[in-house]
């Protein structure tokens, strides 16, 4: 059957004509990426405000009459869910995945642009449903971001009537949106690479996003199914997750369901979800470190295989979230074992980042600062993860601030730092303007130091046994006054760091209109997106001819070459060499 690879097809590009097809119902991956990113950041700001309100209550209990216990639980739940799903997943995959995949592999667009466009609009729909839950009677759900039944749908939990339904429906809609986008990302990486772009020449950003999307396509089904089942439990009175219960003196109509089944389904999604967020972060940070250290990434092949290994292992570690759920103890043994094994490929990646910096020509640009900051926070969060992966250590630390601190360090602060790094790094390409460097550096230092000022004391609170998710601690024997003082301190820093993020918003908005023109390749980067004929890239990305790739994406400081970077698409005969250095040979791959 007549069939030509995408890279060899020469279809006429139809430029979108009107404002609406260009910026609103756009099928261009770059516009879709910006739409995804804007929605995600806006909803993320709301989640940031919610965390500030939570911290106010925790730091100064009994001081804020407008935060009732039920409000507090609603803030926790919505903060967690928005941050993990609607901000991080959407921004990494929907935002950076959409923007970078076609540009970095040398494609004109995703393989199925129409489906891609549907993806962002369905995502917006899921966000609207989620926001609507703030305005229904009873407010949004306050079940905690894990939404464990039976409490999530039982009376007494805030939002157990309507809020939880909106939450579950919103999640199901999000998963549909993600699937439509995710199919595009994976297929595009597999089938639409340009001439010369082998899998092993792809930038690690693409690898991270590619494997993370595969994880998403296999893990989100479990969340989808549990959302459907819980919706039925709530609306139809089925008993998938609901055992026989007496609530407020009344027997509920349920019997024979299994709450632990929900936990298994949820964490079968939930743990890969950690890596759905982490793997793109790993990829992006690898590219940023290599570019700004003017040195090739250390151990490229190992980095790729580590990403794949982490992706595979992430599906067999889920029950380490459930050591205290009453599983068979032998399960705990198995899952502790696999959890600790995952530390090996992760550690390989960290070593390789550090070795990339070693003897590099490091330029402490704003993206580089955030990327190096990520290494610190990630090592920190990763090490505490080893504590919690062990059953015996986990049991006393379960449901304490130690878990909160670990989780926020490894999955909150670390990916967010990478997101900032990536936004600053690609901002000149996306907008054609340079951001304000001074503001960027202030933003970094306040955020980075602030993160440790917030989360380091939390580990200590966790060791004291301060429980998480409590509205107010009250007077207890085991919590000294100093612990409460520390809690107030954390709140002060958290509010401060939250306000500091306005610097970022101001910087982005100001630079968008008033920033200096950045040029097409301000960082001297090698990967294809910096070699586009136009900046920002036009519809179709490459003009009449697709680029041809001759080497990997990390040809920095090549011995004897005149420039300290050789773009992926520069023909070997065009590479300028220093006098007496001979002809450019390049890497064999």
């Amino acid at each position: 059957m007549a069939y030509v690879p995408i890279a060899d097809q020469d279809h006429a590009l139809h430029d979108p004509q009107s404002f609406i097809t260009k910026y609103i119902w756009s099928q261009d991956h770059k516009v879709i990426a910006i739409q995804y990113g804007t929605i995600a950041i806006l909803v993320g700001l709301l989640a940031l405000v919610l965390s500030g309100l939570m911290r106010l209550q925790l730091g100064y209990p009994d001081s804020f009459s407008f935060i009732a216990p039920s409000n507090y639980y609603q803030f926790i739940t919505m903060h967690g869910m928005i941050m993990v799903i609607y901000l991080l997943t959407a921004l990494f995959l929907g935002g950076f995945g959409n923007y970078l995949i076609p540009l970095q592999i040398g494609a004109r667009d995703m393989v199925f642009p129409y489906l891609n466009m549907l993806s962002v609009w369905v995502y917006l729909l899921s966000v609207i449903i989620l926001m609507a839950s703030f305005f229904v009677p009873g407010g949004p759900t306050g079940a905690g971001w894990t939404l464990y039944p039976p409490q999530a749908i039982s009376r007494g939990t805030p939002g157990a009537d309507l809020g939880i339904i909106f939450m579950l429906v919103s999640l199901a809609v999000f998963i549909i949106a993600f699937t439509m986008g995710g199919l595009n990302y994976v297929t595009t990486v597999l089938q639409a690479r340009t001439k010369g772009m082998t899998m092993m020449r792809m930038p690690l950003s693409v690898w991270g996003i590619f494997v993370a999307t595969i994880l998403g396509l296999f893990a989100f089904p479990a969340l989808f199914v549990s959302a459907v089942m819980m919706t039925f439990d709530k609306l139809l009175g089925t008993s998938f997750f609901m055992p026989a219960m007496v609530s407020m003196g009344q027997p509920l109509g349920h019997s024979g369901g299994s709450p632990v089944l929900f936990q298994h389904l949820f964490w079968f999604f939930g743990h890969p979800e950690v890596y759905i967020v982490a793997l793109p972060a790993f990829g992006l940070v690898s590219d940023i470190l290599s570019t700004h250290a003017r040195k090739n990434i250390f151990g490229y092949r190992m980095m790729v295989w580590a990403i794949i290994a982490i992706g595979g292992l992430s599906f067999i570690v889920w029950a380490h979230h459930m050591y205290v759920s009453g599983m068979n103890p032998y399960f705990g043994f198995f899952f502790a074992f696999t959890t600790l094994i995952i530390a090996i490929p992760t550690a390989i990646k960290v070593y390789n980042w550090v070795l990339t910096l070693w003897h590099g020509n490091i330029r402490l640009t704003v993206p580089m600062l955030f990327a190096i900051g990520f290494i610190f926070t990630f090592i920190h969060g990763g090490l505490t993860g080893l504590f919690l992966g062990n059953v015996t250590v986990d049991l006393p630390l379960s449901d304490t601030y130690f878990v909160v601190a670990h989780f926020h360090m490894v999955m909150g602060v670390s990916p967010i730092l990478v997101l900032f790094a990536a936004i600053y790094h690609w901002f000149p390409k996306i907008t054609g303007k340079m951001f304000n460097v001074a503001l960027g550096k202030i933003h970094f230092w306040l955020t980075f130091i602030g993160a440790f000022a917030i989360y380091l004391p939390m580990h200590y609170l966790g060791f004291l046994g301060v429980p998480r998710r409590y509205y107010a601690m009250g007077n207890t024997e085991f919590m000294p006054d100093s612990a409460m003082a520390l809690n107030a301190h954390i709140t002060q820093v958290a509010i401060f760091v939250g306000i500091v993020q306005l610097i970022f918003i101001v910087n982005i908005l100001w630079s968008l209109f008033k920033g200096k023109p950045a040029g097409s390749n301000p960082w001297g980067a090698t990967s294809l997106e910096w070699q586009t004929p136009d900046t920002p890239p036009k519809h179709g990305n490459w003009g009449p001819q697709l680029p041809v790739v001759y080497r990997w994406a990390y040809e920095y400081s090549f011995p004897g070459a005149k420039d300290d970077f050789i773009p992926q698409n520069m023909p070997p005969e065009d590479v300028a060499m220093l006098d007496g250095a001979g002809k450019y040979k390049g890497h064999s791959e």
Partner: protein
Amino acid sequence: MTDLSIENTGGRLNSIVVDWSDEKQAFHVPWGKVMMWIFLISDTFIFSCFLIGYMNVRKSTTEPWPYPSEVFALELFGNPVPLILIAIMTFILITSSGTMALAVRYSHFRDKQKIALFMVLTALFGATFVGMQAFEWSKLIAEGVRPWTNPFGAAQFGSSFFMITGFHGLHVSVGVIYLATVALKVLKGDYDRKNNYEIVEIAGLYWHFVDLVWVFIFAFFYLW
């Protein structure tokens, strides 16, 4: 391979890696087929989770599980025949896979009439299946089976039944619409203009998948 490809220096295993990670594309098929395969794997996870959830509640429930052969029996000529309706439904669905395969075969010859004929036939078999499913649902509902309760035993029986067969029936219904649309476009000659009949095969992939899932539902829900 062009001079830009990676060289194969190693043995057979290495050549697999080299082929797969070569420039331009991983699989030498149109992207639509790759995308459908990935979607189906993702969908497999959805159905697996539904089936595992069902098995789990079947074990966790405190009431006895109804006996499927009795619940799904039809009265024929005065005698209850166990599973007869399901057997016919299964037969129809598997037959529809056969007609779909014929449509794919004729797509290789670009025989528009025959492609459309067999696709419409497949869609009709699918519609018949959904119709019989609707009959089964209404029969059970008339007997008092509800998602939250049923007269035969554990309430989870009805919950799982309606959820799983409903979700599968939704897939079949979507497939019927999908097949009918493609068949119409075949007749209109849309794919002659694009010089590409892959869509018939892609639709076929989806249809065979829906059939395969039914076999698992049949085995795990009706026969167990």
